[in-house]
């Protein structure tokens, strides 16, 4: 092979390697979920309304059987995202439409409502501060931001109901619980939130799969200045 041939062979190989690396980074390493922005939707300092739903099986995407959160963006659309951008030091009014059934908690400690305004949350209009996860249908998920001490158990629906929701986004025609609570957003930063219910069915301790994947049962509260 001539000098030029060898040089171009090397350059081609180099280009292939760089291309493969870039492809890998773009495809596998940066699939960050879409950020749903709530900062511009209302007047400065006014409370932010955050409406989310939890669904037992998302029904689409790469993992259709996985349990997941969805969020209603300021335009009223249900979006499959768990990264929510909210303003700092602002009251956040959270409404959770809970479509998933429940189970006992691994650690009943997470039946305690913590860190919300007033230390309570409401289940279909009834205020409570401790929920017994061995009761009734148990707890489906908890919405918890450990670093600011927020934790709210999301009560599960009756698994034997005839109208359980099978695929997201669910509408209120299906059996569901409405949970409401408020909290004050902390200072700017990215705050991980997660669930403390072993809801990754089919994974050891129930904490694999959706529980261990961003955009299903965990995400960030992206607090903007």
């Amino acid at each position, binding site marked *: 092979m001539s000098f030029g041939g060898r040089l171009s062979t090397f350059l081609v190989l180099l280009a292939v390697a760089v291309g493969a690396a870039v492809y890998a980074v773009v495809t596998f390493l940066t699939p960050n979920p879409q950020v749903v922005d709530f900062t511009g939707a209302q007047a400065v300092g006014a409370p932010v309304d955050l409406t989310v739903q939890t669904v037992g099986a998302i029904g689409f995407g790469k993992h259709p059987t996985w349990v997941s959160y969805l969020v209603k963006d300021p335009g009223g659309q249900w979006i499959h995202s768990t990264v929510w951008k909210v303003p700092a030091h602002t009251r956040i009014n959270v409404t959770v439409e809970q479509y998933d059934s429940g189970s006992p908690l691994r650690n009943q400690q997470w039946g305690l409502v913590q860190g919300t305004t007033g230390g309570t949350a409401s289940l279909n209009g009834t205020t409570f501060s401790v929920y017994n*996860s061995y009761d009734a249908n148990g707890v489906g998920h908890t919405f918890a931001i450990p670093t600011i001490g927020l934790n709210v158990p999301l009560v599960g629906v009756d698994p034997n109901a005839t109208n359980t929701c099978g695929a997201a986004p669910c509408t209120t025609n299906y059996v569901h619980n409405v949970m409401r609570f408020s909290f004050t957003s902390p200072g700017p930063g990215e705050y991980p939130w997660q669930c403390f219910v072993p809801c990754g069915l089919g994974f050891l301790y129930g904490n694999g799969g959706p529980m261990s994947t961003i955009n299903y049962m965990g995400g960030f509260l992206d607090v903007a200045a």
Partner: protein
Amino acid sequence: MTDTAPTPSAHQPAGPPSAEPRHFWRMFAIWIVLSAILDPLFYFLVGPHVPPGTMTSSAAENQLDFNILFVIALPVILAVWVYLGYSIIMWRASRKDAPEPVGGEAARTNLRVQTAWITVTSVIVLFLAGFGTYELIQNYGAGGGQGPNPIWKPTASHILPVQVIGQQWKFTYRYPTYGGFETQQLILPADTTIAFHVTSLDVIHSFWAYQLSIKADANPQVDNVAYTTTRQLGRFTVRCSELCGLWHGAMYNFGQVVPKAQFDSWARQTELTTAANTRLLPPFAWTYVPDANGAGGGYYNNTVDPYSPSEVYGARQPAS
């Protein structure tokens, strides 16, 4: 390979033996001066600030241990560095006066040097192992997890047991002597010997109370005990130091050492305010088996005969 290859000229005009510098003594002098300066500098200036500080007995002892090790290690490092530096400067081929190296038996082995080397390293190493063992034992396990059957137990008359429960991805704490309430805050009394009982509800975590110098892995169904005695008031960091999954990096919180009286009132008050939840918690136990459904997460087929964990544990059996 043009300028540095050895010159083939074989007949170096060998100088009189006395002209040869006494390399060993030169190096020794440099080394002893450096060591004599740097060791005290480290011990007295840096030493008191070496992590993990002096907040607890284990922290203070481990700091001392680190400093002793460093004071011994520094001269060892310096010895090698001085030697390397000296050789590189003195015996480089490009030096004009560099004599040809001499081969032969003398350059291959030197029984005295070899024996001295092995003796010195062995003595250092054995001393360090002995010293480490001494520190480990007289310090009741040095704040490390001793497993379920600790053999070096503190002799204090009052030991406060605190249970640390790791789960993905948060530590919670139970205080068995206060009705077994569970909390997310780790508050400790000052001047008290504390026994941390570390366990896990799922995968392996590691409870690392940094300033307390406590590190104990949290294994499911294992009660891993670590001791320390608090000495100073203040905040400390708790981090998970064993990779436990997605939110491992976010698995931290802050604890506080407060005066005894303040601790007591905090504990009694928390016992009252969380009473409703404490009733729902499983009875206090050193390890927990979450109920069958939660334990397997649906991974193991619990319905296949003749296997079901509930046969062994009873349904929703929380304690062992």
